[in-house]
């Protein structure tokens, strides 16, 4: 049964154990190429377009629309048009039998767990993937109120070809809730400390929103650490920012209050799931989390952005810079991408808000891979 390729339920992020095929984007019989959108897949946290990793004829939808299946389960079969239907049937039966017989404890075993490194006694959490790859690692820095899970769609795609390290900034996720002064210099210093502790002398720095400003500041403070810079809807390039968003994000202590705040991040507001909201509430309940967020907000965003680094881009010398922005970003205006030095590659993505790495994940992954390679 050569030439028959299984398409299985993908794993988006650490917590995903099962997913639902919301709808098929390709009908049975369609010819598909690598990168074609096959289906919309919903997890408890978010819905994402799933792209084919294989090429051929989509011979069979094994998963029905709205059917929930565990990660790794067969959802479709791709094969050459010449393969007989009976062979497809046999393949499906064989796959199901093997999948059903798999040892339960191995399910999800392959997913890497975040680790913690202590810097001056304070924990810093990171998730490292693609460790088998040589070359410059890619370092991912989330935005205000986020954590390393924000990269759940992007990190796996990057890790197929690169070592990737996603960090929790101080005050966030599983890292220390002691954010110090909370300003860019402090946060960038913490990132550089982690890179030194992990023995990473130079990396492609990728930062989103606040993390973009942190990445930029880190590259300015220690240019030798930056192989390149990708800034996604970054802070640090202009004064304007939605002040209400950062304030309400901190104060909203219930799901009903937080959901409309999070909706501002997306074009498709239905992406704000109960689980996404609950995860953020759980983060904010941690001792010190709200205080850290307040410190960071006061230091960076209260009454408009405090530290604008646009004028210092020239100091980066030969460090390549790319800027990616959601065209409908309601938190930091996309016009901050205008008027940058000609050497800065700028991509404004239609249909994306402030979270293009969640809303247009495959485009962001492609831009990142093209850029660092």
């Amino acid at each position: 049964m050569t030439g028959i390729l299984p398409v299985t339920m993908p794993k988006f992020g650490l917590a995903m154990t099962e997913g639902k095929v919301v709808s098929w984007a390709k009908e049975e019989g369609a010819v598909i190429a690598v990168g074609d959108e096959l289906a919309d897949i919903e997890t408890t946290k978010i819905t994402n377009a799933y792209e084919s990793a294989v090429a051929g004829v989509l011979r069979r939808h094994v998963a029905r629309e709205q059917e929930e299946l565990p990660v790794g389960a067969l959802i479709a079969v791709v094969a050459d048009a010449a393969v007989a239907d009976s062979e497809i049937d046999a393949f499906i039966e064989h796959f199901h039998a093997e999948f059903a017989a798999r040892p339960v404890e191995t399910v999800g075993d392959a997913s890497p767990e975040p680790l913690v490194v202590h810097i001056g006694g304070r924990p810093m959490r990171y998730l490292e993937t693609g460790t088998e790859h040589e070359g410059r690692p890619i370092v991912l820095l989330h935005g205000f109120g986020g954590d390393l899970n924000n990269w759940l769609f992007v990190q796996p795609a990057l890790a197929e070809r690169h070592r990737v390290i996603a960090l929790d900034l101080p005050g966030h996720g599983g890292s220390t809730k002691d954010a110090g002064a909370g300003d860019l210099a402090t946060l960038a210093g913490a990132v550089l400390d982690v890179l030194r502790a992990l023995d990473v002398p130079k990396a492609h720095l990728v930062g989103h929103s606040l993390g973009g400003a942190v990445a930029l500041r880190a590259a300015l403070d220690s240019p030798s650490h930056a192989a390149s810079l990708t800034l996604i809807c970054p802070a640090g390039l202009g004064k304007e920012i939605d002040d209400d968003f950062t304030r309400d994000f901190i104060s909203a202590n219930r799901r009903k209050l937080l959901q409309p705040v999070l909706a501002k991040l997306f074009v498709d507001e239905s992406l704000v799931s109960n689980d996404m909201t609950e995860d953020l509430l759980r983060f904010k309940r941690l001792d010190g989390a709200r205080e850290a967020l307040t410190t960071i907000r006061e230091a960076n965003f209260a009454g408009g952005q405090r530290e604008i680094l646009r004028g210092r881009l020239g100091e980066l010398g030969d460090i390549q810079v790319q800027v990616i922005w959601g065209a409908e970003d309601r938190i930091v205006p996309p016009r901050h991408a205008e008027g940058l030095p000609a050497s800065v590659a700028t991509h404004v993505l239609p249909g994306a808000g402030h979270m293009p790495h969640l809303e247009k994940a495959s485009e962001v992954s492609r831009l990142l891979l093209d850029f660092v390679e």
Partner: protein
Amino acid sequence: MSKKSFRQAINEALRQEMRRDPRVILMGEDVAGGAGAPGDDDAWGGVLGVTKGLVGEFGRERVLDTPLSESAYIGAAAGAAATGLRPVAELMFVDFMGVCFDQIFNQAAKFRYMFGGHAVTPLVIRMMYGAGFRAASQHSQCLYPIFTHIPGLKVVIPSSAYEAKGLLIQAIRDDDPVIFMENKVLYDQEEEVPDESYTIPFGEANLTREGSDVTIVGIGRMVQIANAAADALAKQGISCTVIDPRTTSPLDTGSILDSVEETGRLVIVDEASPRCNMATDISALVAQEAFGALRAPIRMVCPPHVPVPFAPNLEDLYVPDAARVEAAVRAVMQYAGKQGARA
């Protein structure tokens, strides 16, 4: 973050608060274990091992094995709280409240009020409740409605390990007496619980499922029963909101009323005896405040009004299960109303 059992989550909450605040002490029968006897100093850690290991870290000055006299040590804990410590006393089984209730409802619960707001009583009384553990009539009751009845007490009933840790830390930091109820059937259940300390505020319900057809309110372990029923019903096309009030005092009446305004149908799952329990209390609330929204009579899923049976087959019949909740939800969905009633 890692998977922790309900028991471990409670133990971790106690340990972290004892590290953070030297005024936090533990008192109870065998909370350390082995006092005065030869052998292992940390023999028990409470009758089901919840406080195991704490005497090793904090010593007998802060983990106090008490005589088998609930009236003495619960009273002592209330007094210690009024004079500046933050005791966490373990009553073992809620069924033993009868011998120390004066200390709780007539003393600790009244201090703040009767001393004109000048006294604080940061006391937590932990206790096990619930049937399904083959522990017979005197070790299986719920009884939280009795505490909920008393002004001046806060009553917390966590439904899972994550909830237990955050609510217990909140309870220990609270300046009023808090009754903390642990369903012993949950002790070995595991889920993701953060390693760091965190707090869940009182009086804020958690919506564990969100749907549009029926509101189900569950208390304590019954939240899990309600979730199981809601998941099964979802596959049949009936979508339910499940509300975990987390605390019965204060009670988040707003979340319950808001949800009933949306769904028009209410089922309450309460493991306590059916008279004057949380199901009747919430029914009265909704009948009074949201009568116009109701599209069907409220249904209460509760045990029968009998002592908890010891015979395992009878005990299993006694405790509400998901099938009974599903049946109640179907009944309110199918309710046709009387002739002339509003649609």
